[in-house]
């Protein structure tokens, strides 16, 4: 297996050239020309305009907050579920299946189910009538972003759980047995053996990066929330970058779709995510070496 190795990658490169390289090059072209007057070269002025827009910067920061939150929370949920499953004696397969449900749900379902009149309606009724506490409004400014993060983590926590379970399964049994024979509790064993194994595994690091990258493109959940809260204009507090661009595309404030701006913004998002990804990878590889 020598030179043929390259030949085997040719179909992949061909596919990527058509569906990635070509559109990206086209995007670059759109971002440095004026689309409305037939493609006159305008240099970086679209980028300058973009960075002078508070909306864009706000959307970018919402995206970063949303992704960071969702990455951390989905990991916490995934590891917690994996630990819970490790305590179950009977019906482990059943609970695993239940915990996996959100993974099969379309992301838009996560946006719909966690809507103010979705499960929060039930929770609020229970909260108020059974626990006797005052109603709370999830549409309030402090709550909807955490709930968006929670819904996204609901969707992807199970993937983290699967990964955590696979790492736990790969820890040699004698290690557990040794720990338990010294009288360590399940929790203690998990904390000193299972958890470090999960947090130091290359696959968990890989999934963390993927999760962050995917969340940076998050669209469905913010889209649904913009609907619930009636935030229809571009640059609303719910807007992640994807949603902001979607609104620019569907409801351009000036009446003309700002194609060059959208292209420039998409490329900026690409560069930011790529930088963050490289940084994350470096960081975690460094942690593994220690």
């Amino acid at each position: 297996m020598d030179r043929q190795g390259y030949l085997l990658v040719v179909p992949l490169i061909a596919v990527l050239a058509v569906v990635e390289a070509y559109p990206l090059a086209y995007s670059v072209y759109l971002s440095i020309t004026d689309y409305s007057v037939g493609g006159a070269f305008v240099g970086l002025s679209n980028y300058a305009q973009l960075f002078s827009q508070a909306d864009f910067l706000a959307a970018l920061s919402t995206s970063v907050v949303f992704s960071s939150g969702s990455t951390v929370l989905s990991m916490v949920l995934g590891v917690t579920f994996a630990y819970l499953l490790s305590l179950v004696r009977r019906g482990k397969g059943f609970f695993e299946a239940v915990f996996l449900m959100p993974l099969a749900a379309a992301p838009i379902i996560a946006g719909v189910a966690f809507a103010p009149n979705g499960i929060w309606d039930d929770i609020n009724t229970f909260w108020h009538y059974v626990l006797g506490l005052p109603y709370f409004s999830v549409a309030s400014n402090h709550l909807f972003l955490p709930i968006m993060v929670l819904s996204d983590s609901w969707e992807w926590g199970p993937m983290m759980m699967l990964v955590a379970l696979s790492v736990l399964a790969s820890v040699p049994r004698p290690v557990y047995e040794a720990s338990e024979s010294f009288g360590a509790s399940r929790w203690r064993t998990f904390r000193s053996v299972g958890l470090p194994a999960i947090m130091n595994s290359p696959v968990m690091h890989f999934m963390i990066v993927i999760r962050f990258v995917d969340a940076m493109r998050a669209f469905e959940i913010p889209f649904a929330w913009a609907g619930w809260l009636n935030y229809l204009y571009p640059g609303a507090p719910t807007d992640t970058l994807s949603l902001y661009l979607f609104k620019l595309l569907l409801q351009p404030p000036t009446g003309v779709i700002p194609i060059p701006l959208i292209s420039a913004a998409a490329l900026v998002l690409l560069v930011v995510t790529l930088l963050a990804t490289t940084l994350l990878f470096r960081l975690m590889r460094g942690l593994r070496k220690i």
Partner: protein
Amino acid sequence: MTRRASSPRQRTWALRRLPVYLGLLLATLFSFWPILSMFFEGAGIDLGPLWSGKGFSFVSGVPYYSGGFFPSWANFRDALLWGNFPRLVLNSTTIAVLSIVIALAAGIPAGYALARSKLKGMGAVGFLLLALRTVSPFAVVLPLYLTYIRIGLFDTYLGMSLAYLVIDVPVVVWMLSGFFREVPRDIYEAAETSGASEAQIFWRIAVPSVAVGIAATLIFAFVLVWNEFLIASLLTGAATKTVSLGVWSGVGEAFGGLQSADWDAINAAGTLAFVPAFALILLVRQYLAKGFSLAAAD
């Protein structure tokens, strides 16, 4: 040791297990309730009045529940028989299958090469795939849209399948390279010493030994495409509208153009679309983490 000697052993044990059961209950509610509430909505079941205790009363001595508890299969039946749901399923399936066939044709040889070859640049291909995952759909979809309009691919199965390669190709290559990596080296070496050609090793040994992995990858990619919403909302028209978009487009009614029908009917259709996806995820659950674990091992 002292614990074992204590007399009400049973009770202590149950007490110690209590946090576990509580945790399981909470985790189950958290995972399942949002789905269940979608089903309830579709079936016309409203538990709110039950919680509040307000829906329940005695009308001249007869218990009467005035809450919205009117379970009915009507919405599910209507979705399957009357609406455009079957058409949406057909569209999604056609697009996903076409897209995944192309992704596999590119991904099987590439995954094999990534797993086996020590050539320069293979690591770069792996990183390239991760980097491409960071591409915003807008950087791809807007140019594709402008191109599709010009060459007549807009709102076609082929156009949509090509656009979805952005989503399924990286996943397919990652998972498959993981599965190929799992095949013991000895097998390849044995084949080489007995004089098998590279092509024979690939077709007769490597591909059959990861057949299950290929199936799992294919199914996971199918679920991803089945659930996708953003690309579908930008690149499909009436002819190729997908399940996820078709069912939930009512969510976007505020954004204009997308008209909401009956909310109960939408939730019923959403439940129907969820069930096959869940069945498929259950089918491949043990291979999902494995595919990614093996791919991430460096």
